[in-house]
């Protein structure tokens, strides 16, 4: 899998997540939606840096629940951690890992909101 394809796949997930968070009420959800949008813009810049065009947006609106957000954040953490195996450009590793870490923090927020223990695992994602 090329770096550009990996970044494109991550971008689709970020856009989906941003749209989902935008549909959720509250200040924390709005802040998280903005963070997802920042991630998406960073990935778009990375694609442009590779001479690629970012794909057009497909997630303009959606409705979701906290539980949907939890599943999507978990999927994001898994996708970014898997990217560590496939990414060839070493300069992308730290920024992608930094985004992964932020998604891990979103999981903490969501677990708390859902009444669960925020710290369920010493390793994220769990194998």
């Amino acid at each position, binding site marked *: 899998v090329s770096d550009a394809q990996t970044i494109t796949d991550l971008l689709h997930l970020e856009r989906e997540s941003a749209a989902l968070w935008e549909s959720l009420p509250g200040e*924390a959800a709005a*802040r*998280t939606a*903005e*963070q*997802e949008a*920042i*991630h998406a813009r*960073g*990935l778009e*810049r*990375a694609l442009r840096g590779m001479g690629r065009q970012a794909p057009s947006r497909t997630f303009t609106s959606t409705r979701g629940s906290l539980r949907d957000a939890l599943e999507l954040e978990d999927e994001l*953490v898994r996708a*970014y*951690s*898997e990217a*560590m*195996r*496939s990414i060839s450009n*070493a*300069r992308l*590793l*730290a*920024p992608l*890992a*930094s*985004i*992964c*870490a*932020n*998604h*891990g*923090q*979103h*999981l*903490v*927020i969501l677990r*708390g909101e859902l009444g669960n*223990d*925020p*710290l369920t*695992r*010493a*390793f*994220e*994602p769990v194998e």
Partner: protein
Amino acid sequence: MIPPMTMTRRTLLAAAAAAGLAGCGGSDPRPDAARPHVAGDPRRLGLALAFEHTLVAAYDVVGELVPGRQVRELAEQEREHVARLSELMRDLGEQPREPRPRDDYLRSFPRLRTRAEALDFAADLEERAVRTYLSYLPALTDRELRREAVRIATSEAQHLAVVRDLNGLPPAEHAYVTGTM
């Protein structure tokens, strides 16, 4: 006897940096110049392990001012990181280092008087832990080790979120926990 310090954000940051450095000295594994790619990965694992030992010691101190289940869980997860890093080092044929005597760590920590100071100190250490793992990523030659490093870095970022929340701050402050894209 540790001299009293006036706790400001700046002194806590300096203390966190000193504590991290204190954990990284002594018998650190040395890079092998003849085999840089082979030796580099265990060296970085060894440095990360030293930092994890520091975090375990720090949460012992923080827990005295912030009692409760969550700080105990943080300490337990740091011990799990120690165990995992030790296992990875043994897999690479290296002997993982043991923690230093507790007093060595305590000497490098600031004197913490309040719950807020303890949580600021923990937050600074966690942020530094995330930075440490991220800074090692481009140099790790083994792609599986990169993934392991990110799994632990993400866990440390979660610790940072929990500590900030305990301190009455938004858990996820920045879209990039460290750095920018």
